[in-house]
């Protein structure tokens, strides 16, 4: 195995409607792809201590569907769902994603996942693209309403990173 290099996630906003996340992993991309697409494995990372997954189905193939349900420690239930557009294991996939609340459940973003492997290190890039600027704003507004308090603490953390 590679020397345990610490890989940091990078977030960028390549356009006004896109958010891109990039993260490297010390693993072959077949395994990364498997962990991203296999429900029993998704359950082991997606909640990330923020929520416990209560349901998980995933099929990014054209015509497939997916749905994640979770419950936060304070009892709030949330769900995300979408449709598969294209799966190209282990190089990547494309699917739609929407937060299942009335305001935005019909405003999915399109998520494009790409995996590149070099010297045993796989770099994952995911780009979420909102259908319109209006959709983006609705998703942000709704996310803020439903998410944890939009606290100054979060802003402080963002700025403190510099």
């Amino acid at each position, binding site marked *: 195995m590679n020397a345990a290099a610490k890989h940091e996630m990078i977030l960028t906003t390549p356009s006004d409607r896109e958010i891109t996340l990039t993260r490297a992993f010390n*693993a072959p991309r077949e395994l990364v792809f498997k*962990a991203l697409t296999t429900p029993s494995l998704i359950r082991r990372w997606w909640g*990330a201590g923020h929520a416990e997954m209560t349901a998980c189905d995933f099929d990014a193939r054209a015509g497939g569907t997916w749905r994640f349900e979770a419950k936060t420690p304070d009892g709030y239930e949330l769900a995300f769902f979408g449709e598969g557009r294209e799966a190209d294991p282990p190089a990547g996939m494309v699917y739609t994603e929407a937060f299942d609340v009335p305001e935005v459940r019909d405003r999915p973003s399109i998520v494009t996942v790409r995996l590149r492997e070099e010297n045993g290190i796989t770099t994952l890039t995911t780009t979420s693209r909102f259908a319109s600027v209006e959709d983006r704003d609705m998703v942000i507004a709704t996310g803020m309403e439903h998410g944890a308090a939009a606290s100054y603490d979060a802003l402080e953390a963002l700025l403190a990173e510099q």
Partner: protein
Amino acid sequence: MDSPDQLDAVFAALADPTRRAILARLREGDATVKELAEPFAISAPAVTKHLKVLRRAGLITQGREAQWRPCRIEAGPLKEAAAWIDQYRQLWSDRFGRLDGLLQELQQEKPST
């Protein structure tokens, strides 16, 4: 919610690391263009360009004194878009941290060839 145009400007402004660093500095207090330029390996005119972007996004205001033009951070528009982006960043950073741990576990169970 802010107007879409302003949110666009906020997104664009936050996309740049130098501008985020300028905002971080301004959290500590007002500063002149010269003071803002000092920590960066860039010229005062370059800083002025960044300040223009930040001003258009409504993230800072600038005084009128010609020589000094002290800058001040405006928390309002930053708070919504930046707080949302930061929540998103934190959540995915934690998810990828867990995924990283899982991938290590899986490889220990079945060493890859």
